[in-house]
């Protein structure tokens, strides 16, 4: 009597003479594995090659500089407030005379740390930032030997003046249009660059 329709019929099939020879089966199996010799590799040579990531991929953060090379971050702390993982800490300091080329506004972040082990890469800091200073990029966070090394300071977060980090990949059309508003003109440092030009940094 069948109680459910989930019961399975047990197969006690006796092997045919052809199957008992095994050799045809073995050759069939070897042809299957052999055909994989000519298939596309499923893996990539990682450090040299990287897989393409989604345009909205959220990875290693960057603290942007403006077109003159001054840091945008004013240490307002909105990103730290927005952060659901409480991964961001910072200390603010006042800009001194003669530092105008270093910091964009009168207040700046003396230290700025993101704990990459706490970060969940949600991107809320990026949304919260009123100064368009912090962005998540498509760079993968490196592996480290020590837990402390995952607390990224300004040395790892702020982009280098001579080695700008292109965040245009992360910009959706709406964001890009929003940044073209006249009041936000200073935010369009990537203007004129080719949008979506692959995952090169």
């Amino acid at each position, binding site marked *: 009597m069948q109680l459910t329709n989930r019961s399975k019929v047990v197969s006690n099939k006796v092997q045919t003479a052809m199957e008992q020879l095994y050799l045809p089966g*073995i050759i069939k*199996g*070897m042809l299957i*594995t*052999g055909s994989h*010799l000519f298939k596309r590799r*499923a*893996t990539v040579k990682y450090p040299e090659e990287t897989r393409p990531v989604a345009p909205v991929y959220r990875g290693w953060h960057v603290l942007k500089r403006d077109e003159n090379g001054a840091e945008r971050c004013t240490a307002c702390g909105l990103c730290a407030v927005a952060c659901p993982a409480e991964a961001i800490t910072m200390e603010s300091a006042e800009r001194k005379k003669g530092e105008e080329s270093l910091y964009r506004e009168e207040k700046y972040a003396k230290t700025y740390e993101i704990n990459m082990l706490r970060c969940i890469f949600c991107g809320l800091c990026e949304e919260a930032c009123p100064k368009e200073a912090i962005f998540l990029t498509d760079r993968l966070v490196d592996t480290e030997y020590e837990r402390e090394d995952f607390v990224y300071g300004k040395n790892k977060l702020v982009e280098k003046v001579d080695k700008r980090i292109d965040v245009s990949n992360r910009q959706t059309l709406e964001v890009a249009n929003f940044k073209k508003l006249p009041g936000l003109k200073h935010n369009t440092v990537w203007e004129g660059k080719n949008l979506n030009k692959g995952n090169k940094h």
Partner: protein
Amino acid sequence: MITFLIYKLILCVVVFAISLGIAAYSTLWERKLSALLQDRVGPDRAGPFGLLQPLADGGKMFFKEEIIPNVSNRFLFILGPSLVMLTALMTGAVIPWTKDIYVNGQLYSMQITDINIGVLYLFGVVSVGVYGIMIGGWASNNKYALLGAIRASSQMISYEIAMGIAVIALIITSGGTLSLREIVEQQDAGLANIVWQPLGFIIFFVCALAETNRAPFDLPECEAELVGGYHTEYSSMKLGLFLFAEYINMFISSAVMSAFYFGGYNFPFAHELYDALGLHDGSKWIAIIGFGAYFTKIAIFISVFMWIRWTLPRFRYDQLMKLGWRVLLPLSLLNLAITVVVEFIRGNITF
């Protein structure tokens, strides 16, 4: 006399070096081939295309800590891998690597020794090889090692019978000679033995897989059941010797199979090619071309060994024994009977 000694010494060293070199690069090729069969890239970091990988692996083995268990029999523990390696390297002595060459009007044979019982020697030495595994496994004083060793020895003994009978059929076809050189030379004049002994070849091939402890017959080192099998307690270079001997055995059995069934250094239309190139017997170019042909065959066999390993799952132990005793042994006897009848009809044997 001195020249003779020097020439034999050089030959020994060259065969030794080639065996080790081929075994070393077989490990790389095994990893590379398995990667290719599984859609991976494989080792490519050490040197161009990963060609220095065997050196890195060997260096790693050398620098690892050497552990000899307190409860083990120290002498036998060291003897085990040494014996395995020794017998693996000894088998290369009777294999004719290529055609003879003339140097300064003197004929030099490219075989370390052409004894008239070459096939027997080969089987004898291979049988001693199992003692190395047995001793190593027993001396470890470890149940898994012992089980692995017992498996290895019973498996080898079982498959040697079918293998031996397959070779007897081959010897009948090649006119009763036990010299490997003569078996190879006969295939130069006539057809390769595979034409006369297709069933014998299949039996020999399956048994060779079992003799070298390769998948699908790698039960002695079955990780799932026996940790590491007979080399569970081994570390450092002694483990390396065990693993390395397996690759040398694979190389030698590929060489023997090519010599027995595929004409060794001969290949189809060889004489036409040599005539077209204007080469005479004893020319070094003939030897080099023959050597190339032989090694192509060996390389193909080694690759097929690996291809099988990365295709088939391991046998269960009762299946292994059933295959050996209830399938291969009757088949090899049948093959022998058919061979005798056919050779009698052809008039090659008389009673």
